[in-house]
């Protein structure tokens, strides 16, 4: 009882002293409940992953993805299905009054499908994931510089690397200029970075730098370079669970330039990236030589916004020529594009491709859209996509299909939104190649979400 009283006294004293403490605790959350219905749920599994690698080497095709990722694009009798899923994220920032030092911890529960682990009868499953654990502080000798150490969000272009990573990043802002240097480490094969029994080939190191110029009118240009030494990887033939080799080493260098601009009613964003480097397989080397270009224009007239965009990611046109011409990303989301059926949608862990390409075939995409702000709470939109791969060597054709999308967003209250969209894909000939009878079916999918962000 005495201990309880003492603890209470300390708590009360701390509460009374709160205004004098130079410390702040700030909570943010993203509580995302989403639902999806599709006439072919096979296409809701990931065929191409952003974090997986695809290699056409000496006439053979390899990937770091183990097992069979290929769906059947022919509709079966049980293909129409519906799921609900949760993905809850929270992060806590502890800082001083002037935010010179910030300690951040972020975690995620999910994704858990209703009825699956973490969201079934009774719950009680271990679905905890650590997202962030880092300290971010202003350098005492240079108030323009900050150092971020730990597991942190890494933002080197939304189409290259915009996920979390453990490492150290130095950033500095000086008037219109901003720049950063970073070192991050990965362990693709999950061998265990830093274990005394492993050597340096077992893990992956990334070194990154960027330079940003913000014009007086708010427009910006960003140049970046990322060098990644992938270490030693195990690769499989597509669809196989048996390792083809465990002696593949990949060195990649991305050079990129991106920009955002706004001129009166017109706004634009664009990215151009060039990928070089080499892949060493059992002593034989292959050169990397690939690129990606993305651009989007938005024109706003009153409450309406019209969009025109396009993306091209190069693919490997000849797996026997000793060159790897397929573009490769590190860790991204493709939800930026707004597709419902092919790329990341509201239920973002359930997309056909989480990368802007299919295997090593690259991608060609053109899209147009219109959005209308009905009132301060409601927004409606429609989009059309023409999906193609850049090359047709793997699938026999390059046309994935024509996709038509409509959607609506409603703000229930500040931070709480309800969204729904629906897409219909008129399947192209490239999807026939992964159909059980060589003739794929069209796909309808609708996703909805209730999201609380604060």
């Amino acid at each position, binding site marked *: 009882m005495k201990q309880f009283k003492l603890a209470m006294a300390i708590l009360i004293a701390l509460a009374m002293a709160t205004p004098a403490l130079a410390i702040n605790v*700030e909570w943010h959350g993203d509580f995302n409940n989403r639902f999806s219905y599709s006439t072919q749920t096979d296409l809701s599994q990931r065929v191409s992953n952003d974090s997986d690698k695809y290699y056409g080497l000496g006439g053979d095709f390899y990937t770091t993805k183990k097992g069979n990722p290929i769906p059947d694009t022919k509709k079966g009798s049980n293909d129409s299905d519906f799921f609900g899923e949760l993905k809850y994220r929270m992060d806590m920032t502890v800082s001083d009054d002037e935010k010179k030092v910030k300690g951040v911890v972020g975690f995620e529960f999910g994704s858990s499908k209703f009825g699956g682990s973490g969201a079934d009868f009774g719950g009680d499953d271990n679905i905890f994931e650590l997202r962030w654990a880092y300290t971010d502080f202003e350098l005492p000798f240079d108030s323009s510089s900050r150092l971020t150490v730990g597991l942190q*969000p890494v933002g080197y272009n939304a189409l290259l690397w915009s996920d979390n990573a453990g490492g150290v990043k130095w950033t500095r802002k000086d008037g219109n200029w901003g720049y950063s240097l970073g070192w991050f480490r990965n362990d693709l094969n999950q061998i265990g970075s830093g274990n005394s029994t492993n050597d340096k080939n077992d893990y992956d190191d990334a070194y990154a730098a960027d330079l940003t110029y913000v014009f007086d009118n*708010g427009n910006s240009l960003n140049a970046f370079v990322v060098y990644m030494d992938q270490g030693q990887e195990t690769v499989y033939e597509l669809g196989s669970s048996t390792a083809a080799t465990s002696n593949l080493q990949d060195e990649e260098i991305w050079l990129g330039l991106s920009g955002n601009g706004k001129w009166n009613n017109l706004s634009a964003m664009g990215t151009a990236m060039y990928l070089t480097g080499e892949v060493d397989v059992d002593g034989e080397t292959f050169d990397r030589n690939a690129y990606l270009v993305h651009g989007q224009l938005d024109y706003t007239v009153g409450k309406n916004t019209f969009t025109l965009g396009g993306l091209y990611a190069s693919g490997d046109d000849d797996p026997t020529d000793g060159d790897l011409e397929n573009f490769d990303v590190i860790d991204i989301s493709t939800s930026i594009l707004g597709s419902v059926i092919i790329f990341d949608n509201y239920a973002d862990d359930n997309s056909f491709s989480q990368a802007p390409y299919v295997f090593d075939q690259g991608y060609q995409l053109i899209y147009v859209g219109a959005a209308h702000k009905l009132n301060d709470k409601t927004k409606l939109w429609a989009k059309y996509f023409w999906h193609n791969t850049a090359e047709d060597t793997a699938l026999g054709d390059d046309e994935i299909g024509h996709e038509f999308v409509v959607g609506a967003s409603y703000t229930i209250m*500040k931070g709480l939104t309800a969204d729904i969209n629906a897409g219909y894909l008129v399947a192209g000939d490239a999807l026939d190649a992964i159909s059980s009878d060589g003739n794929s079916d069209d796909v309808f999918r609708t996703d909805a979400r209730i999201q609380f962000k604060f």
Partner: protein
Amino acid sequence: MISKVSVWLVALLLAAVGTAPAGTLEDLVGDLQPVPGYVVLPVQDEYLIDLDATKGLVVGDLFSVVQVGEKITHPVTGKVIGTLDTSKGVLQVTQIKEGFSHSKALSNKSAIKRGDSIRRYDGLRTAFWDYTGKAEGFYSSLKAALPALDWQDFAAAQAEKPANPSAANATVADLFIVATRDGITVRDTTYKVVRAYPLPAELLPAAAAPAAVAAPAAPYRLEHPAKPAAIAQGVQYDMTMPGFQTPGGLGFAAVMADFVRTGNDLLMAATDGTVVKLYKAGDKLVPVAEFKPETVPQILSLHWWQPASGKLYLAVSAWKDTGLNSSIYRYEDGKFTSVDKVLPYTLGTFDRDGDGSRELLLAQNFDRETFWGTIVRELQLQSGKLVTRDIGFELPRRFTVGGSLMADLDGDRKPETVFVRDGLMYVYSGNKQRYKSPKMMGGSVSRIMFEEQPNARETKMHFAAFEVPPVAVDLDNDGSPELLSVASESSLMSAPGISANVSKSWLAVVKFRDGMFVKGTLGEELDLPLQGLTLDQKRVMMVATQAGSVFGENGGSQLLVFPLVH
């Protein structure tokens, strides 16, 4: 030449007097030295002069415009030994740039022309008002050291001076030097402080002796309503609720409001985040106009802007989708008209010259991590288009154009920069921090959540609060303004995306006294956030907001008025 002679003269006087204060008299004489220059160009209502800070100029300095008179010829040699110059007008410095300064005419405007010769603190009618009862010797020293001024007789000046230091009788001279127990101030024709100095030791009141001079006017306090009289069969009770008057409700839950006086009207613009409403704030709150920005952004703050006499604009800082979407609106004949394009900046307006109207519009860039970028530019209107200009003064790195003001708080005639950020109030002179408050300043419901990289798979979430700008008012009638600011209490833990976390609000007062800034409070606490603040005609006016439910229902705002009494 005069300068060197004067300084030597002062030095000699100091040596002779022995006990005379070294700093104040020397500083005063140095600061009031005549400096010659020319009128370069008349621009609209002002005149550009060819002098800047390198010549020791500060905003508020006064210049005689020289009317060249008859030549004085030596009767024997026939040489011209001088001219019988007179003053044909007075200019006052309003803004200092690099290489030149802006000034306004205080008298005889029509006679001032390009090329006219000007002299600082020369030929001005000068009165010395002594409220210490001991400053006659100081006056004599000053008069001897500054012969270019047209000094009024000491005794005559004391006979004419008002009982308490104030602007009454301020028309008898162009320049006033006023000695009170708080210090010595140099004041212009309108009795505004141009320069200020500590009181020399010899003029300080004796510790035990009662003050022999008239006390300054009593400070203001809030007027409380009379207690209700007991009624038959009833009981008398003591009103403990805050004693404010309520001219009216706004009809929505305002997240920001701003006031401006135009002629006989006090106008209040307010927004609930989607629509802007305009009211006349008199004894009653009267709706005048309203508009909704065409692009339907989230409105975060409003600032009245008066770039030129008779013209009124409203700077609206707003957010849409993933970036700033701000606009300027011209207000004329009861209507708001959009000016030029949508701006990717946060906007704020400032009264740097202390003339009571906010003539300076600043635009701050958006930083995807901190919201408040470090690039601040001036926006000017040229032929109906908004153009950006570099600013001619320093701002601190943590400056925010929202929740800020610029005012001369320490009497040095250079405006301090004041801003409220993350619960702290800062006062800066240039880049030098003069004051940082405890964490209880501000507390606004106007806020925005934003993602650092909207298209990224993993990104940090940030928020920014738009605070109500403090106001600078001379509450205690000592000739120097105090800062009146919204203050609030909030808990250690917060989820800023859900709630502003304001449990109670009050008004804080920050004053520069005895070389330092001190903080106090004015009035009582309220359990509502305050989203607008002004002081107009001895009335403190605030907008108190009841946020309502999370769905926006049952919210509302009231204009609260506290009359000030001595």
